[in-house]
C-alpha cells in the first residue's frame, strides 16, 4: 500500500483525478436521485399535459453535463478566492475582474488570429492553448499588481479597510477595461470568432435511454483543460517546495517567516497562481458563452465565492467540490424550476439560487462541506 501512495504518478495524477471523478459522480448521483424523488412527489400537481417523471428523466443527462461543465469553471475561479483567503484571510473581491480580463485577453488574441487569417491554418487546440497561456500570464500579472498597489499598504489595517479597497478596485477594473475597449475597438463587447469544431456534438447512443447522449466537444474541452489545471495546481501546492511554503504561510504566518520564508514573496506568488487560474477560467468561460463584456465577471465571481464557501474556504479540495455542487445545482435549477412550478418561477431565478445556497450554508454549516471550524478571531 505504501508504495502505491508514495509513487509520484499515483500521488499527483491518478489520485487527484480519481478524487475529482468521485466528486463528480457522487454529486451527480445525489442530485439526480433527489430530483427524481421530487418528480415523483410532485407528479400530480402539474397542470400541463406531460408526465413529470418522464420529462425529468429525459433532460437529466443534458442537465448533468451542463452542470459539470459550468461546475468546473466555477471550481477553477473558486480556487483563486480560496488560495488568497487561505494565505491572507481576506476575500479578494477583484478576482472576478481578473477572471474577466483573462477572458477578454484570450478572446482578443483569437480575434487577432482571425484578423490575420491565421485562424484557419492553425490547429484549433493550439489556438486555445495559446489563448489560455496568454490569459494566465496577463491575469497573474494583474493580480500581483493589484496586490502591490491596493492590498499591501493595508495589510495591518482593520478588516473593513482592505475589503472596501478590494471592492473599489473591482469597480475600477470593470470600467477601466470598458474604457480601454471603447478607445481601441469602439465598442465594449468582445465576440469569440467562429472557428474549429467546438460546436459539434459527439453522439453516443446508449441502449436503454431514448434520446442518444450528445456531448458537445466544447464541454469536453472545457472539462479537460480544467482537469489539467487542477491537477497542476494540486502538484504545485502539495509536491513542490513553493507549495510547502504557501501552505506554511497559510497555516501560521509569523512562524513561517521565522522559518526563513519570504512571506511577501509567497503572498505575491499566491496571487499570481490564483490570478492565472482565474484568467484561464475566463478563457474557458468565453468559449462557453462566446460573448464577453466588461461586466461579465460579477455573477460568476459571486457564484464562485459561494462555491468556495460551500466547500470550506481555505480548503482547495473544498473549492473543487463546492464548484461542482454549485454548478450542478445551478444547472438543475435553471432547467427544472420552471417545469416544477408550472412556469411561475423560471430560469431567471437561477442567479438567486446561488445566494440562497450561500445563506443556507452560512447559517447551517459555516465551515462548509469540507472545512474545519475556524476559531472566531476578533
Amino acid at each position, binding site marked *: 500500500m505504501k508504495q502505491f501512495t508514495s509513487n509520484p504518478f499515483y500521488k499527483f495524477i491518478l489520485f487527484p483525478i480519481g478524487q475529482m471523478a468521485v466528486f463528480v459522480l457522487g454529486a451527480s448521483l445525489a442530485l439526480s436521485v433527489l430530483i427524481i424523488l421530487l418528480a415523483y412527489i410532485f407528479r400530480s400537481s402539474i397542470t400541463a399535459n406531460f408526465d413529470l417523471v418522464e420529462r425529468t428523466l429525459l433532460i437529466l443527462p443534458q442537465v448533468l453535463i451542463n452542470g459539470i461543465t459550468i461546475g468546473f469553471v466555477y471550481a477553477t475561479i473558486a480556487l483563486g478566492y480560496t488560495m488568497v483567503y487561505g494565505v491572507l484571510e481576506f476575500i479578494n473581491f477583484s478576482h472576478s475582474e481578473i477572471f474577466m480580463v483573462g477572458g477578454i485577453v484570450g478572446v482578443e488574441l483569437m480575434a487577432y488570429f482571425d484578423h490575420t487569417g491565421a485562424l484557419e491554418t492553425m490547429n484549433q487546440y493550439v489556438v486555445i492553448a495559446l489563448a489560455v497561456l496568454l490569459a494566465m500570464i496577463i491575469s497573474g500579472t494583474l493580480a500581483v499588481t493589484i496586490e502591490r498597489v491596493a492590498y499591501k499598504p*493595508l495589510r495591518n*489595517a482593520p*478588516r473593513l479597510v482592505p475589503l472596501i479597497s478590494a471592492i473599489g478596485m473591482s469597480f475600477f477594473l470593470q470600467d477601466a477595461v470598458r474604457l480601454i475597449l471603447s478607445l481601441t475597438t469602439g465598442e465594449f463587447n468582445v465576440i469569440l470568432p467562429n472557428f474549429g469544431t467546438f460546436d459539434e456534438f459527439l453522439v453516443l447512443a446508449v441502449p436503454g435511454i431514448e434520446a442518444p447522449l450528445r456531448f458537445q466537444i466544447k464541454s469536453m474541452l472545457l472539462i479537460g483543460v480544467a482537469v489539467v489545471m487542477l491537477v497542476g495546481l494540486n502538484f504545485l501546492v502539495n509536491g513542490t517546495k513553493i507549495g510547502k511554503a504557501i501552505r506554511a504561510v497559510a497555516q501560521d504566518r509569523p512562524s513561517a517567516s521565522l522559518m526563513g520564508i519570504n512571506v511577501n514573496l509567497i503572498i505575491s506568488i499566491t496571487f499570481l497562481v490564483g490570478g492565472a487560474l482565474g484568467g484561464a477560467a475566463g478563457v474557458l468561460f468565453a468559449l462557453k458563452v462566446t460573448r464577453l463584456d466588461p461586466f461579465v465577471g460579477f455573477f460568476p465571481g459571486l457564484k464562485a465565492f459561494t462555491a468556495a464557501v460551500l466547500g470550506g474556504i481555505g480548503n482547495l479540495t473544498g473549492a473543487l467540490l463546492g464548484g461542482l455542487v454549485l454548478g450542478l445545482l445551478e444547472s438543475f435549477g435553471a432547467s427544472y424550476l420552471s417545469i416544477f412550478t408550472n412556469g*411561475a418561477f*423560471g430560469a431567471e431565478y437561477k442567479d438567486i439560487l446561488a445566494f440562497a445556497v*450561500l445563506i443556507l450554508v*452560512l447559517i447551517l454549516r*459555516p465551515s462548509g462541506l469540507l472545512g474545519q471550524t475556524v476559531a472566531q478571531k476578533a
Partner: protein
Amino acid sequence: MKTFFTELFKKANKGPWPLIITLSLLLVGTITVYQSPRSLTAFLTLMLCPLMLYFLKINSKVKLFIGLLLVIVIVPVLGIRNIFYLEVIFQMAVFAALALGLNIVIGMAGLLDLGYVAFYAVGAYTWAIFGSKQLSLLHSIPGAAPAGAAFALAPEWFWLFLFLGVGLAALAGILLGLPVLRLRGDYLAIVTLGFGEVIRVLALNLDKPINLTNGPQGITPIQRPPLPPDFILDPIRQLLAPVVGHAVTDAQLYNVFFYFLALIVILVAIMVARRLEDSKIGRAWTAIREDETAAIAMGIPLVRLKLAAFAAGASFAGCMGVVYAANRTFVSPETFSFLQSIGVLTMVILGGLGSIPGVIFGAAVVVLLNIQILQNFSLYLSELRQGDTVIPIINFAWKNLSNQLDPAKYQKLVFGIILVVMMIYRPSGLIPAERRQRELAEETE
C-alpha cells in the same frame, strides 16, 4: 503644504473675515447663478456657502439667518428659474439621507452592508404599488394593461405611506439581519450584496404569476401628494412671478415642494442620527464595532443591537424611497442596482465613516460629481467631437473618438478610484469623526 493651508485657515477664521467671505460668496453666487443659470462655476460658488458656514467661526444667530435665507429664499427662487438646481439639491438630499442610514450600519455599528439599496427599493416600491394603478392590474401581463384601471388609493395617503415606508423598510432590515447575525465582515458583505441583488431580481421578475412590480418596465404613473390649497399658493405665485421673470407653473411649484419635503426629511434624519449617536444604543454600537467579544463580556445584547442597527439604517432609506417614488412618478428595477449601493458606500467613505457632517458632505460631493461634473465633461467632449481639433501630442482627431466614450457613464470608475484612494491615504474620510480617526489611523501606522 498642510501647514500652509492650516495657517491660511486660521487667518481666515479670525475677526470679520469669516462673515465677509461668506457674505461675498453668497452675493457673488446668487448674482452669477441668476444671470447665467447653466454655469457650473456659479453653482459651485453658491454651494461653497453652506460649507463656509460649517467651517468658519461666525456668530450662531448670524449663521442661522444666512442659512435660512439661503435655504428658504434664495435656492427656491433660483430653482424656479432653472429647475435643474432644485433637481440636484433634491438628489443631494435623497442621497444624504441614504448615506446617513448607511452610516448608522457601517459607521456606527461596523456592519459592512453592501446591499443597502434593497431597503431603498422596498420603500419606493411600497408607495409605487399602492399609490398607482398597480393593485388593480395584479392579473394583467405587463404591457397589455387594460385601460380604465383605477388608482388604488387617493394621493393624500402619501403622508401615511411616509411612515409606512419607514416601518416596512425597518422590517426588511430585521429580516436581512436575522440570518447574518453570526457572520464576520467578509461574509456579511457578500451576503448583504446577495440580498441586494435578490431584491433587484425579484423586482425585475415579479410580473408573473401575479403582476406585483410590472417587471422591467417599472410602475408608472405614481401619484404625488396634493399641493397646498390655492389660498396659500396664489400670493406666493404673485410674489415670485416678477422675480423669476415668467409665470410659475404647477410643475415648478412641485419641484420646490419636493425640495422642501426632502430638506425636512433630512433635518429629521440628522436629528435622529445625532440622538442615536449620543445615546446608550450608539455607545453600545461603538462597543460592538471596536471589539465584539469584549462587548459581549460587558453584557451588551448583541442580537438586539445588530438588528436595531439594520432596522434604523434601513428606515432612513425606506422613507426616502417613498419620497423618491412620489417625485419621479416612476420606479423601475434599474435604479436599485449594485452600482447605487456602492455609490452610497462611496459617499460614506469619502465623507467620513461615522461622522454625520462628513457623510452629508460626501453625498453632496458625489452627487455633484455624477450629475454636474461628469455631465459637463461629457458635453465638453461632444463639443470637441463636433469640431475639427486634434489631441496635441498624439495627433488623434477628436472626431474619431468613439461615441461610446461617454464620461457620464463611467461612474463605476470614479467610485472605484475614490474608494481605493481614500482607503489607502485617508481611511477616516474627508471630515472624520474623531473617534474613528484615532481608531483607523493608529492601525495603519
